[in-house]
């Protein structure tokens, strides 16, 4: 469904600080896949997600969605297909608007907005039902300003907003990393239940090896802008944490020894 072809992204291209963030990435994402993405800092995980969402444009390569190249579409135009949840719980919602106003904005994701009323009565019922499923009591706070909610509540709301209209792809960028362990657990459980119930194609960046193994049906490891490991299905299910850690550090050891040679 989604194909990246020789997808390349530089930062500060042409300057002394040039960084090759994504190097000729080839990746095919099939409908219904739940992919977890791991890699060390600077591996290109977030850059990959940002390129998919349209925050960054690639320097070369293609991004095909159902046969159409959307690599250079602006972010707002892709919103029809793509929704995302950020690491920062404050980034996904509007603090000065109410819970129902935020949900109403999300209900119109990718649609033309006109002079119709912003929050309709029938929509309130829908929101109330959807919020009840979160089990946070937010259905009683439809008119509260989102700024009054906790980080965890805001992230749960963002998760709901991202999936209120089923997206073709859901991008999760370490969306539980900024929360305390208990809240993070709740958000991840919520993620699993929503993604499974709606069969949403999902990309989830994580720093947590356990999460990378337990969630999803495919795992990708990025390193210095390249995919160095791509495993799925039963093979992934059989993968042990030790194997993954071994893989993870193998690469870094290689580099260390290379550095040592240089220094020696």
């Amino acid at each position, binding site marked *: 469904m989604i194909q990246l072809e020789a997808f390349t992204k530089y930062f500060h291209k042409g300057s002394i600080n040039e960084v090759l963030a994504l190097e000729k990435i080839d990746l095919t994402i099939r409908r219904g896949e739940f992919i977890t993405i791991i890699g060390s800092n600077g591996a290109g995980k977030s850059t990959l997600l940002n390129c998919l969402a349209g925050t960054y444009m690639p320097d070369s390569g293609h991004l095909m969605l159902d046969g159409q190249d959307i690599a250079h579409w602006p972010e*707002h135009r892709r919103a029809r297909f793509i929704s995302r949840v950020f690491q920062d719980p404050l980034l996904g919602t509007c603090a000065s608007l109410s819970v129902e106003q935020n949900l109403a904005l999300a209900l119109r994701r990718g649609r033309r907005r006109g*002079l119709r009323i912003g929050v309709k009565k029938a929509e309130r019922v829908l929101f109330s039902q959807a919020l009840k499923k979160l089990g946070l009591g937010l259905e009683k706070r439809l008119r509260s300003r989102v700024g009054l909610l906790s980080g965890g509540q805001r992230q749960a709301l963002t998760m709901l907003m991202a999936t209120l209209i089923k997206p073709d792809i859901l991008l999760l960028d370490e969306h539980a990393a900024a929360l305390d362990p208990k809240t993070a657990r709740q958000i991840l459980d919520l993620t699993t239940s929503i993604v499974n119930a709606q069969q949403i194609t999902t990309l989830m960046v994580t720093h947590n090896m356990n999460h990378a193994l337990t969630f999803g049906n495919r795992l990708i490891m990025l390193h210095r802008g390249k995919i160095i490991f791509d495993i799925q299905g039963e093979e992934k299910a059989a993968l042990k944490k030790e194997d993954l850690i071994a893989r993870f550090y193998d690469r870094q050891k290689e580099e260390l020894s290379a550095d040592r040679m240089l220094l020696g």
Partner: protein
Amino acid sequence: MSWYAFIGALEQGFVYGIMVLGVYLTFRVLDFPDLTVDGSLPLGASVSAVAITHGVNPFVSLGLAAAAGFAAGAVTALLSTKLKILHLLASILTMIALYSINIRIMDGPNVSLLGVDTVLDPIAASGLPGYLAAPVMYAGIALAITGAIILFLNTELGQALMATGDNPQMITSQGVNTDTIILLGVGLSNALVGFSGALVAQNQGAADVNMGVGTIIAGLASVIVGETIFGKEGIARACLAALFGSVVYRLAIALALGVELGRFSFNPSDLNLITAVLVVMALVAPKIKGRLQAK
């Protein structure tokens, strides 16, 4: 304060209140500090004055003034979003350019409206005493416009506008082109300012190229005074607070101008100083209040 000074302050409060709504839209809702208003207020005034002296109906001239204001705001928005000029600087550039444009429109630094029809004539003809006609008329217009803005902010588009000012990343990922929204918002704001300028010109009987000096500070002062007195929770409350903040501000100015301490009294030219002090006080007051409560 004399009765006439009071009525005059009310009148001005409502007329400039429409401008204050515009400032509220950019400064508070869109988080886009826009100084275009110092130029779009006289722009609206000159367009309206020239139109009326060429035989256009005074009410129609208000529409023309609003359209001209929208265009001025659109220029600022485009300078900022498309050419990536800092919003503050972009608005100053438009404001400066408008000085020349306004003189071109009026073919001179001012146009007199003495002896021609204005929007006040129909209501004056209805038999209402002259000193009441103006405040009633302007209050009606200002309240109607405030109502329209409240309704607009509750629409899908209005909500997108509020979200753009609050969290541009969020609303972009909901599929909204923030550049378009900023164009619309800053345009609408300056349309209100142009409309207000047209009414000011008709009220005082002349359009003048320098009448816009200090508009932004008066607007900001009114917004802050309104928020402090009437609160800012909710769309309707915030918009009404902006309008009535303008009325309170004009009353406060009238009071200050009437103060006599021995041989000292304020001149109208002290207005800018008084306003600046007022804004500083209003900005600092909540902090001092917070500190006192914390003790």
